[in-house]
């Protein structure tokens, strides 16, 4: 079964540094997402992406975050200047149809980001 793959599995960075989290969505999917889960808290929506642009974002997704689909396969999340509170598990997901449609999201294994 095709999978969403995320790299790296664990990233440690210093406060103020830029990080790029990488994802390869399922190849025929058109909608891409980033979620995060701070330890002990719920999975929170960050952003959705379709047709090379952001279709929806949460209040968490402020100016320090950006997403990009640099080529036909990768989908990246960049955090420009990391803060301690950015430490979390970041999940990438993809789906065939738009949010609210009839197909579910498929999630990657996540990248654990630790900001020191």
């Amino acid at each position, binding site marked *: 079964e095709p999978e*969403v793959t995320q790299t790296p599995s664990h990233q440690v960075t210093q406060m103020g540094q830029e990080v790029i989290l990488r994802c390869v969505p399922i190849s025929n999917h058109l909608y891409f*997402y980033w*979620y995060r889960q701070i330890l002990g*808290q*719920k*999975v*929170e*929506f960050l952003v*959705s992406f379709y047709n090379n642009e952001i*279709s*929806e974002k*949460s209040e968490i997704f402020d100016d320090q975050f950006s997403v990009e689909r640099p080529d036909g396969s990768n989908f990246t999340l960049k955090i420009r200047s990391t803060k301690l509170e950015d430490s979390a598990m970041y*999940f990438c*997901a993809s789906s065939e149809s*738009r*949010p*609210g*449609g*009839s197909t*579910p*999201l*498929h*999630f*990657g*294994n*996540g990248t654990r980001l630790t900001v020191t």
Partner: protein
Amino acid sequence: AQSVSQHNHHVILSEAASLELGCNYSYGGTVNLFWYVQYPGQHLQLLLKYFSGDPLVKGIKGFEAEFIKSKFSFNLRKPSVQWSDTAEYFCAVNAKDQAGTALIFGKGTTLSVSS
């Protein structure tokens, strides 16, 4: 905006016990409902989903969930749990047929099953 509440933070059961995990959502319109499971060290996987039709939906590994519209609930059940069901369970909802609507998750319930 939608929100999801999962009432049980941590549930501890013995093998063969029955399971029911509560999930309530708030949204005035029509919704899609999901349960995802996250086994230790693994990614979120879809357990089951409800889009329309029969409110009792069956998923993988013997799980089922019932959508009760009047109660805004979508509780997850399994008649007899196994040690391998130890995982984190997340209820999620999104608005049906509304463009740009994110999937919103509950806080999750940790299920620990002892053998």
